[in-house]
């Protein structure tokens, strides 16, 4: 059942030089949150967008979901620029692209019962099937994400746990039968012991329904668990991207290495003391050159200029160390 006028191409989603500049504070000082980010996403894949706070990952998610307009660059979904869609096309876009968010309790309006948002999504997005029994479809979607409709239907958000609400968010997104799911830190506010079940659901969606998923987060272990490809962001720019085993098992970019050194693992303890970085860093926003240079142990003179995104096999890395080995 094809909808709208989307043409089929290898990459379901492509970001080309996407930039976002915010005016902040009372005086409107410009802050570059996302700086010429480009990456592509193949259908039926899970791509992890990894970065720490202030890396711009959530801003990218909001731009893909058409909540924030990029200052420059374009977001192409199945051949069409997302921000040039008009009227009816916007609704068709949301029939194909849905999002789930970080805070389960903020994703549900406390005044309405939890199925309010599911009914809302069903009525406006699932246009293909007008003759259906609403409650039945909603109950099915709930079971699909491992929820027992009896102890969820008719409840208010504050009566359910974070895990239950997050599953309901996925159920709501599934009602529109989307092809792309943008998950903005879906598990970071859940208890460690229930995160894995959520990730399993996302993985099943990819394997059984060829669902494409962008998973935004900062936890490398969670990303490794279910992703196919990874994009590592730092202060708004792409540092390294590629297949998950290449980037997270055999990292090349110094920042990715620093991240992997810092991630606590339950099977081994940190050996050497890493020492404290100078805490008084206020990075000059508009500084030229590699953004990681001030913290990079392997910094050398070349780093004063902004490194291009080099291609090494299927991996891409933005670092002068590998300039000569460009394949």
């Amino acid at each position: 059942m094809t909808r709208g006028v989307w043409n089929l191409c290898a990459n379901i989603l492509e970001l080309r030089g996407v930039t976002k500049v915010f005016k902040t504070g009372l005086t409107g000082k410009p802050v570059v949150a996302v700086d010429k980010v480009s990456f592509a996403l193949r259908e039926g894949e899970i791509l992890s967008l990894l970065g720490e706070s202030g890396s711009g990952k959530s801003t990218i998610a909001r731009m893909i979901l058409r909540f924030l307009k990029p200052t420059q660059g374009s977001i192409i979904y199945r051949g069409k620029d997302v921000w040039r869609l008009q009227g009816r096309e916007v609704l068709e876009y949301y029939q194909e692209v849905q999002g789930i968010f970080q805070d389960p309790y903020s994703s549900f309006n406390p005044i309405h019962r939890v199925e309010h948002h599911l009914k809302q999504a069903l009525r406006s997005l699932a246009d293909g099937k007008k003759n259906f029994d609403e409650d039945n479809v909603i109950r099915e979607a709930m079971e699909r994400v491992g929820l027992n409709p009896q102890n969820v239907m008719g409840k208010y958000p504050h009566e359910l746990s974070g895990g239950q609400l997050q599953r309901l968010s996925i159920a709501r997104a599934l009602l529109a039968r989307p092809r792309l799911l943008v998950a903005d830190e879906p598990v970071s506010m859940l208890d460690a012991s229930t995160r894995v079940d959520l990730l399993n659901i996302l993985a099943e969606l990819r394997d059984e329904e060829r669902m494409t998923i962008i998973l935004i987060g900062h936890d490398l272990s969670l990303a490794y668990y279910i992703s196919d490809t990874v994009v590592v962001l730092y202060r708004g720019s792409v540092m390294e991207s590629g297949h998950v085993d290449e980037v997270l098992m055999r990292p090349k970019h110094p920042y990715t290495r620093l991240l992997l050194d810092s991630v606590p693992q339950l099977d081994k303890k940190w050996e050497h003391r890493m020492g404290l970085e100078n805490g008084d860093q206020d990075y000059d926003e508009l500084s030229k050159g590699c953004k990681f240079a001030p913290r990079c142990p392997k910094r050398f003179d070349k780093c004063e200029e902004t490194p291009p995104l080099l291609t090494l096999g299927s991996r891409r890395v933005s670092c002068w160390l590998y300039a000569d080995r460009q394949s």
Partner: protein
Amino acid sequence: MEQHTVSRTKEFLHHIRRNRKVKAGLALFAAILALAIVGPLFTPYGPLEPTGEAGRPPSLEHPLGTNTFTYDVYAQTVYGLRSSLLIGFLGGLIATVIGILIGLAAGYMGGLVDEFLMMLTNIFLVIPTLALLIVIAAYIEYRGIMIESLIIGLTSWPWTARAVRAQTLSLKNREFVLVARMSGASGLRIMVGEILPNMFSYAIMVFILQFGGAILYAVGLDFLGLGPTKGISLGLILQQAVLWNAIQLGMWWWAIPPGLIIALLLASLYTINTGMDEVLNPRLRRLE
């Protein structure tokens, strides 16, 4: 009025009934309301009906005595209370509705709309409302309750607009608004369907303050001789009392009681509001 935790209506009403301030405020307000409704049954006199005796101190027949024009002060007070309550309700309602509309629009739409509406709000916050009302009212020949409520409502909405805008801003960034947008909901439907319902308990509190504010302005205008051209109101009684030197002539019963009722009425509304604020904002609540 500052940020409130969004409480479920059921739970909110549950706590409200238990809050000491709300109970006390409601009791006092109910008493005054009762006085306005049943009060006139206890006196044979109309508010502007001569009783034959001028300046009599309070007695069984005249619970609040009579004034220089031989009118029964008690009758004047209870009938005057009715018009003050009515103006308070209407004026307060108009101000609250306008304030919510402007605050909601400014908060949700942001950008130029927000800039312009907030500029307008700040201007009207600085200009003294009573002075503005005087200038407007002075030019109106026939001033009835409706007109007085209207001009009060049209000039006292800024407080509400500012508070509602702050609430809207905090709700607008909540993720359930993004969820609604992803379901193709229009801005209007989000404002009415998602944001406004969350402000229900908040709107009540704001209305209570506007109700009190409207009464205060109405009484102020009446005192300056700009009240309803026909009929009686609490402000008018006090204006006459001062004009005819009630105090200097010792007729305290003409001037003190009507003013006391206004003060008690406003105090009851203020107490209800404070009690509700405590329930909505746990940080202010001191657990008994």
